[in-house]
């Protein structure tokens, strides 16, 4: 399995991380090194083995479906890079 620059570009796109074209060959090389290492997993005999879902036997706690927090829109929006009129502001989403 070898990653070319086209695949590297596609992965960067999926991850929503901009990578300049000039940096794609080096990125593809890094992917190949890491994935080459991960390839060892193919040797393991996993026939009939269930994939792990939870490492502890514990069932996740449930709580009542009630509001426990809130009414602090101003404080939440204070962290936003751009907020207007009680909303998070972002660049245009649709053409």
């Amino acid at each position, binding site marked *: 399995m070898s990653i070319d620059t086209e695949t590297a570009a596609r992965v960067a796109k999926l*991850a929503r*991380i901009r990578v300049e074209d000039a940096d794609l060959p080096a990125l593809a090389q*890094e992917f190949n090194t*890491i994935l080459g*290492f991960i390839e060892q997993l193919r040797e393991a005999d996993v026939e009939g*083995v269930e994939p792990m879902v939870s490492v502890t036997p514990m069932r996740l*706690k449930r709580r009542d479906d009630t509001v426990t927090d809130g009414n602090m829109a101003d404080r939440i929006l204070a962290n936003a890079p751009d907020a207007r009129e009680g909303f998070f502001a*972002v660049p245009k989403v649709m053409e």
Partner: protein
Amino acid sequence: MLGKLNMDEFAMGSTNESSVYGNAVNPWRRQGDDTPLTPGGSSGGSAAAVAAGLCLGATGTDTGGSIRQPAAFTGITGFKPTYGRCSRWGIIAFASSLDQAGPMTRTVRDAAIMASAMCGHDPKDSTSADLAVPDFEAMLTGDIRGKVIGIPHEYRMDSMPDEIEALWARGREMLADAGAEIRDISLPHTKYALPAYYVIAPAEASSNLARYDGVRYGHRARLEAGDGITEMYEKTRAEGFGAEVKRRVMIGTYVLSAGFYDAYYNRARKVRTLIKRDFEEVFATGIDAILTPATPSAAFALGEMTQADPVAMYLNDVFTVTVNLAGLPGISVPAGLDAQGLPLGLQLIGRPREEGDLLNTAHALETAAGFVAKPAKWW
């Protein structure tokens, strides 16, 4: 609280060199050599501060060894409790099925005291275990007569320095002298732990770090006229994340992507089941704790690994990562110095949720090792 300490960005790194703020430095130096050494990572700032005597103890988080490896590099005690023992509320998630908080201290007793305060159920972390927390300190009797200590032969690596091998042998002798029975064991899937980890941890990280999109908090890139939402995400994340974080988010994205999910992610989760089963099987034969080296080397020079490929860096966690994959408690105890005067640690791995027993064995090992060396003050 005395202060906040340095760490690798989003806890991704084994040397502290991927910190946003620049790396912390190990208070220890090689004899007659001023070369600055890594304190390890990711909790390298915590380890350096405790080793330098700046504080009695510090907190750390451990996803693949980030408490135990820096503890070993700085001659202190680093304790990762069982998965779910400590609430992770307030900690930024890296790999949610592996992350666990714990104390980093000068002694096992201090770790026991801190762990008793840190552990327990928290409604704000749904994975935190609703189990009574014993007084861990009261369980430090130092009496380990009749305990069975397993020595896994898969942890003997070809490239392992003789000093680590010798330290491990001394650890066996010390525990035997204290009255424990030493038994050879096998954990046959050990060699797959690191590759499985480097599928599972990046996969979870790519999901957890999706929230860093520049909308609700944190950095947002300056945009060009005409840039839409996708450009904002891509530029923001390219600018905001460091190199190692980007690398892992992209690897995680790849292993979760259509066509590769089964070959990588599901396969890694199956291997994880086998790794956990290895431990369950040895514990079922009466093993109380497992003794291994904590790290494959002593602390190395800052910058030494930056030219190496990422996989060489990942090998730092080869002895610690199995413990996270199986959700077990593990502790690194300083046990000796290498020929250059640098500390080396031994790791003890315990049964799930039996931290008190593990800490007691660690206490016995600590007492026998009598590690009292301190770094000479140069700072």
